[in-house]
């Protein structure tokens, strides 16, 4: 299969990558760029473990072709901390005890980061709606919702 060369920005770095035409954005992030914070869960757009920001909006990276990301701006969980300092949300999710096994955490952080950007003071129900597509099997969500509320303050 012929490779396609794409240039895109990932976590503020410009990357040029040769990708197979059937490669997903998720595979490119993990296998070509070695950014393994983004997880593969269901590969069906259900679990949200692979959520990244694409041009400022959260998407399931398992449902996007890498080949169509020419010129895109991608932010993964590795891009949330700046200059070695965790983001507010990363701090509050630790403080609230919103991390257990940690598998959903990267996607959860991306969805919540996007929520707080479009709605800096969300209600409980708005928070829960925003993370409908991020499944967590450990926490029961209460502490994750707490963390997002703490970050909103």
């Amino acid at each position, binding site marked *: *299969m*012929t490779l*396609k060369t794409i240039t895109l920005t990932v976590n503020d770095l410009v990357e040029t990558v040769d990708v197979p*035409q*059937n*490669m*997903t954005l*998720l*595979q490119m992030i993990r296998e070509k760029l070695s950014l393994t914070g983004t997880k*593969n*869960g*269901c*590969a*069906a*757009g*259900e679990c*949200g473990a*692979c*959520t990244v920001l*694409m041009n400022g*909006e*959260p*998407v*399931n990276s*398992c*449902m*996007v*072709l890498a*080949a*169509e990301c020419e010129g895109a701006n991608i932010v993964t969980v590795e891009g949330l901390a700046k200059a070695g300092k965790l983001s507010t949300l990363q701090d509050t999710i630790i403080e609230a005890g919103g991390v257990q096994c940690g598998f959903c955490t990267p996607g959860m952080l991306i*969805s919540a980061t*996007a*929520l707080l950007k479009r709605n800096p003071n969300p209600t409980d129900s708005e928070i829960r*709606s*925003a993370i*409908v*597509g*991020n499944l967590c099997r450990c926490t029961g969500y209460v502490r994750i919702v707490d963390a997002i509320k703490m970050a909103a303050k």
Partner: protein
Amino acid sequence: MINPHPGLPELQYVKPATLQEASKFLADNAGVAKPYSGGTDSFVRLRDGILKLDYLVDIKGLEGTKELSFDPQKGLTIGAAITMNQVARHPDVLKHYPNLAEAAESVASYQLRNRATIIGNICNASPAGDTIGTCMILDGVLKVHGVDGVRAVSLSSFFLAPGRTVLKPGDVVVAVQLPIPPKGLVGTYKKLGRNRIGDLSIVAVAVLGYPTPESASGYRFRIALASVAPVPFESFKAEGVLSGNKITAELIDEAAGATMDSVTPIDDVRGSARYRKQMVKNLTREALTEVWTKLSK
């Protein structure tokens, strides 16, 4: 059955520059090429091996596919690349077609709605398609670009069977056009899932209503049903009950009961046919009562 492997089968990504080029490519590769916009349905089917393709033909850059505009004469145009979230937050949609925004917001999750499109929802032709019923009873018309040029296809005659439509090889749906809604239109979308939000529907009902002197009751109701037949459809039987008489709670009950005679549900993992038949009545009654309450305020 979910295939947890992140990869897709081998295929080529094609990005045509013009609609003509896209239609020609799709017609030349009929059966092995498919228009690709958000991919939220196609990817799952490709991974599971239900859908086999050699080419995904990206239509997102094509002329007219990025249009989302409202014209006070023509109504709303939603291009094929416009996502559910773009529709759900557009000020003109919220002002003139709030029921479409409501239906779009009921789909899956926020991040999926950043990829999923209204046109994709329509073309996927799932019996459960959340935005199809509302587009249908808003009298939506598709703008289809084929090898012989552009034609208009009404949503009322678009669906043939689950996953099957009147589209022919080479056809690209460029946009859906919704005319100006009738004055005083109100509506609602009732969706029953296995959980409160995010799931596919077990049964879903879209109801619109508006005052009109043309009807003996003084009102016209439009009722679309999903997940209770091979394709989403408008229940003329239930609408007919409401057209000739004064609207009362008893008449609403009768109309809701009439939906049960127009459906042909199946048993599946989400619910039994019997349950669906009961629930289509309950949801229709609930939706009609809500719409009627709004109308008679």
